[in-house]
C-alpha cells in the first residue's frame, strides 16, 4: 500500500515544469521598474512591451523544450576528457546552435552588428528563465556573449571581423580565461606570459589557466579565450596585465581560411559537486611555444577592460543564483502542496486524514524564507539591469546616478543571492524530507549547483573587501548618497500606504544602523586597515539585507496599492503573497541587521588576533 502511494503520487514527471514565475517577472518589469520607460531612448525605440513579452515567451519555450528536459541528464552525464578533448552532453550542440541562430548571443548589440538592441533588463529577465530551467546549459551562450562583448568593445576592427560573427552564430564558444594555479582571487599574480612576435599585435602566449568554464568542448567548432597574460618586460602587478584573444584553433591565412591547432591543450576536466553539465577545463597554453594570442586594445590595460565587463557578469552570477533558488522554491512548493504528513497542532484527531505539509507553520516558514530571498533578490538584480541600460543610453545626472548605483551595489547583487541561495536551496531539500536527499527529485541538484556562486566571479570575501574598501568611499561617498536618497524615497512613499507605516520605520532604523556602522568602520580605516576590513564580509551581509529590505518595501508598496483593484482571485493571491513575503523578510531577515551591527561595532577583534598556530 505504502509503496503504491509513493510511486503513484510522489514521482511526478511534470514536477519540474513550474521552475519560475512569469507573473513575478512581469510584476518586476512593468509594475515595479516600468521597464517600458527604456523605449523612450533612441537605442531602444523599436521595442515595446509586446516585444519584451514575446522575448520572454520565446525564452520560456526554448527552456521548456530544450533546456529543462536535459537538467537531470546533464548532471548525471558529466563532461569527459576523451583523447585530449572534452565531450559534453550531445544535446548541447543543438542548444548552442539554437541560441546562435535565434540571435540570443548578440541580442544586446547594435543593429549594425547584427544585434537587436535589446535592453539589458529584458535580456537578464530572459537569461533568468534559461538559468532556472538548466543552469549548466545556459552558461555556454552566456559566456560567448561576454567574451564577444569584450572584443567588440575594445578590440580592433580586424579582431571584431575575424571572431565575432562566428561567436554570434554559436559556432565558436567564448570564454573568460583569468584564473591560474597561483592566481585566483589575486589576479595581479598571474604568470601567463606574452612575448611580441614580428607581427604587430600578435604575441606568443605561454602559461596555464585553471577552472575555465567551457574552456574546451565538442558542442562548438572552436573556443575563443579572452585571456589575461603579462607582456614580458611590462610593469609588475595588475598594471602589467594585458588582454588577448587566444583561439583554440587559429585561422591561417590561405584561400580557404583553414583552422590549425593553436597549442592550447586541455590538461584536464574538473569533476565538480554541481553545475556538472558545464565543462570546466584546465588549459596548458603554449607548451610547444606555438600559441599565438592577439592583443585586445592597448597593452597593460587588460584587467581594466575585464573589470568594465565585470559588473554585468557579476549581476549575471547573482541572477544565476536566484534562478537556481527559484527553481528549488517551486519544486519544494509543489511537493509541500501534495505531501500529506502529520496533523496540525491545532487539530490532532488521528481519525482525520493527515494534513498536507504546506499547512505546517514550520514548512510555511521555509517556503516564505525561500520566496522572500529569491523574489527580493530578483527585484534588485532586475533593477541593476535597468541601471545598466540607463548607464548605456541616458545622459547627465540620470546616467551618472545609474552608473554609481550599479557600481556600488554590484558586490551585493552578486554576493547576497549567491550566499543566500545556498541556504534557500537547503531549505528546499529540507521541505522534501528524505525525498529531498534522494536523486528522485531535483532539489538536491539545485542545492549542489547553488554552491558555486559564492566562489566564482570573485569570492564573497573579495566582494566584501570591494564594497567596504572601495565602493563605499568612491567619489567621496556619492554612490552611497544616491542610494540613501533612493531608500528614503521608498520609505516616504511606503509611509503613506496603509499597513506599511511600520515597515517604513523599520527600514529607516536599519538604514540608520547601517550608516552608523559604516561611519564607525571608516573611522578605524586610517589607523588600522586590517581591523577596518576584517569583517568586510559581515558588512556586506548587513548591507545586503538592508538593500533587499528596501526592494521588499518597494514591492509591498506596489502590491498594497494594486490589491484593492485586483478582481481575479489569482491576482489577489499574487499581491497577498507579495505582502506576506515582505512581512516575512522584515520579521525574520531585517532583524539580523541589529546583531550584525553589534558585531561590527564591537572592539573585540578576535579574527585579527587569532594566530595560525592556535587553530
Amino acid at each position: 500500500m505504502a509503496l503504491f502511494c509513493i510511486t503513484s503520487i510522489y514521482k511526478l514527471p511534470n514536477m519540474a515544469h513550474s521552475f519560475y514565475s512569469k507573473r513575478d517577472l512581469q510584476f518586476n518589469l512593468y509594475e515595479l521598474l516600468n521597464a517600458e520607460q527604456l523605449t523612450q531612448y533612441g537605442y531602444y525605440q523599436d521595442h515595446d512591451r509586446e516585444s519584451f513579452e514575446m522575448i520572454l515567451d520565446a525564452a520560456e519555450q526554448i527552456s521548456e523544450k530544450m533546456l529543462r528536459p536535459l537538467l537531470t541528464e546533464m548532471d548525471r552525464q558529466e563532461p569527459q576528457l576523451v583523447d585530449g578533448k572534452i565531450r559534453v552532453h550531445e544535446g548541447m550542440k543543438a542548444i548552442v546552435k539554437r541560441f546562435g541562430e535565434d540571435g540570443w548571443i548578440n541580442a544586446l548589440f547594435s543593429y549594425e552588428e547584427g544585434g537587436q538592441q535589446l535592453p539589458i533588463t529584458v535580456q537578464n529577465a530572459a537569461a533568468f528563465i534559461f538559468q532556472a530551467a538548466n543552469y549548466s546549459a545556459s552558461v555556454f551562450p552566456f559566456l560567448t556573449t561576454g567574451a564577444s562583448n569584450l572584443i567588440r568593445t575594445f578590440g580592433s576592427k580586424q579582431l571584431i571581423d575575424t571572431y565575432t560573427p562566428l561567436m554570434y552564430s554559436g559556432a565558436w564558444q567564448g570564454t573568460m580565461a583569468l584564473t591560474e594555479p597561483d592566481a585566483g582571487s589575486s589576479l595581479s599574480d598571474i604568470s601567463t606570459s606574452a612575448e611580441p612576435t614580428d607581427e604587430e599585435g600578435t604575441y606568443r602566449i605561454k602559461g596555464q589557466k585553471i577552472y575555465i568554464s567551457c574552456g574546451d568542448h565538442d558542442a562548438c567548432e572552436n573556443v575563443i579565450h579572452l585571456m589575461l597574460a603579462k607582456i614580458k618586460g611590462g610593469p609588475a602587478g595588475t598594471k602589467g596585465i594585458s588582454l588577448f584573444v587566444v583561439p583554440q584553433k587559429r585561422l591561417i591565412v590561405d584561400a580557404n581560411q583553414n583552422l590549425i591547432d593553436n597549442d592550447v591543450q586541455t590538461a584536464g576536466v574538473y569533476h565538480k559537486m554541481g553545475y556538472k553539465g558545464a565543462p570546466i577545463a584546465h588549459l596548458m597554453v603554449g607548451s610547444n611555444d606555438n600559441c599565438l594570442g592577439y592583443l585586445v586594445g592597448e597593452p597593460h590595460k587588460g584587467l581594466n577592460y575585464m573589470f568594465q565587463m565585470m559588473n554585468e557578469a557579476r549581476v549575471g552570477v547573482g541572477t544565476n543564483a536566484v534562478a537556481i533558488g527559484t527553481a528549488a522554491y517551486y519544486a519544494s512548493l509543489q511537493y509541500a502542496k501534495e505531501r500529506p504528513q502529520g496533523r496540525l497542532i491545532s487539530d490532532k484527531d488521528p481519525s482525520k486524514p493527515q494534513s498536507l505539509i504546506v499547512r505546517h507553520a514550520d514548512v510555511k516558514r521555509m517556503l516564505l524564507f525561500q520566496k522572500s530571498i529569491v523574489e527580493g533578490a530578483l527585484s534588485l538584480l532586475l533593477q541593476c539591469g535597468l541601471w545598466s541600460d540607463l548607464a548605456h543610453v541616458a545622459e547627465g545626472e540620470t546616467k551618472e546616478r545609474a552608473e554609481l548605483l550599479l557600481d556600488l551595489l554590484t558586490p551585493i547583487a552578486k554576493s547576497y543571492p549567491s550566499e543566500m541561495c545556498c541556504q534557500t536551496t537547503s531549505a528546499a531539500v529540507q521541505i522534501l524530507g528524505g525525498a529531498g536527499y534522494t536523486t528522485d527529485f531535483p532539489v538536491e541538484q539545485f542545492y549542489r549547483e547553488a554552491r558555486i556562486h559564492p566562489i566564482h566571479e570573485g569570492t564573497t570575501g573579495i566582494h566584501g573587501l570591494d564594497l567596504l574598501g572601495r565602493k563605499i568611499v568612491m567619489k567621496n561617498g556619492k554612490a552611497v548618497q544616491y542610494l540613501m536618497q533612493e531608500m528614503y524615497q521608498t520609505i516616504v512613499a511606503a509611509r503613506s500606504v496603509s499597513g506599511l507605516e511600520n515597515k517604513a520605520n523599520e527600514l529607516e532604523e536599519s538604514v540608520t544602523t547601517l550608516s552608523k556602522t559604516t561611519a564607525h568602520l571608516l573611522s578605524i580605516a586610517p589607523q588600522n586597515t586590517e581591523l577596518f576590513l576584517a569583517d568586510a564580509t559581515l558588512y556586506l551581509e548587513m548591507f545586503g539585507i538592508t538593500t533587499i529590505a528596501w526592494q521588499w518595501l518597494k514591492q509591498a508598496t506596489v502590491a498594497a496599492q494594486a490589491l484593492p483593484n485586483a478582481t481575479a482571485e489569482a491576482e489577489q493571491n499574487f499581491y497577498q503573497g507579495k505582502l506576506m513575503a515582505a512581512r516575512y523578510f522584515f520579521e525574520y531577515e531585517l532583524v539580523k541587521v541589529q546583531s550584525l551591527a553589534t558585531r561590527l561595532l564591537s572592539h573585540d577583534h578576535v579574527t585579527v588576533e587569532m594566530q595560525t598556530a592556535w587553530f
Partner: protein
Amino acid sequence: MKILVCITNVPDTTAKIAFIDNDTKLNKAGVQYIIGPYDDYALARAVELKEQHGGSITVLNVGEADGEQQIRKALAIGADDAIRVNCEPSDSYFVAAQIAHCAKEGSYDLILMGRESIDFNSGVVHGLVGEMLNIPSFSPVMKLDIDGNTAKFAREIEGGKEYLEASLPLVLGCQEPIAEWKIPNMRGIMTARTKPLNVVEPVAVPEAATLEKYTLPAPKGAVKMIAADDVESLIALLKSEAKVL
C-alpha cells in the same frame, strides 16, 4: 502559394477560469493569453510549406484588439501580414462567416486553422468555412504536403489514419504532429512590428445563438488510495460513492 492561417486568442492552458457579469463573461484579469495550440501547429506547418514552396502567409484573427499580441507573435514566427476582424468572436457560425468573407477577398490556396479552439472547443469552424466557400474541408489533419496543385495529407480517424489527396483550394483543421511549434527568433520578433496588420470591421451575420451563462465544472473530488489487490473495496466505492456502477 497563398496561405491563410486562422488563429484564436485563448487563455493559457494553466489559466484559472472565472466569470463575471452574472456568469456571462470571462474574467480576463490576470489571465495570460496564447495562440490556440492547434492553430499554432497550423501556423508552424504553413511556415514550413512557405519555406519549401515560396508564397505568402496571412494570419487572420477574428477578435478584439487585446488579441494583437498573439497576431504579432504569429508574424514573428513567419507570417507576412495579418488581418484582424474587429469584433468579439461570439459563436462558431459568426467566426466562420468572418473568415469566409476575408478568404473570398484574398483568394487563398490553402486555409489552415486548428482542429478546434481550446476555449469553446466546438471544432466546427473549418467545416463551416469550407461550406461557405464551397471548397472541401478536412479535419483533424496531422500530416500535410503540397505537390503542385495537390495537397497530400493524413487525417486522424477512429483507430487509425486516413491518407488523402485533394486539389487546392482547401480548408484544413490541423493538429499535432503536423509540425513542431515554432519559437520566434529575435529578428522575427523585431520585424513583426513592421509587418502590415489590417484591422477590418466584421460583416453582418444573423445571430445563430445567444449566450445565457457559463458554469464551471464541479471541482475535482479528493483522491482515495486503494491497494492494488483490494478490488472489492474499489467496486464498493465505485458503486456507493462514485455511483458509476
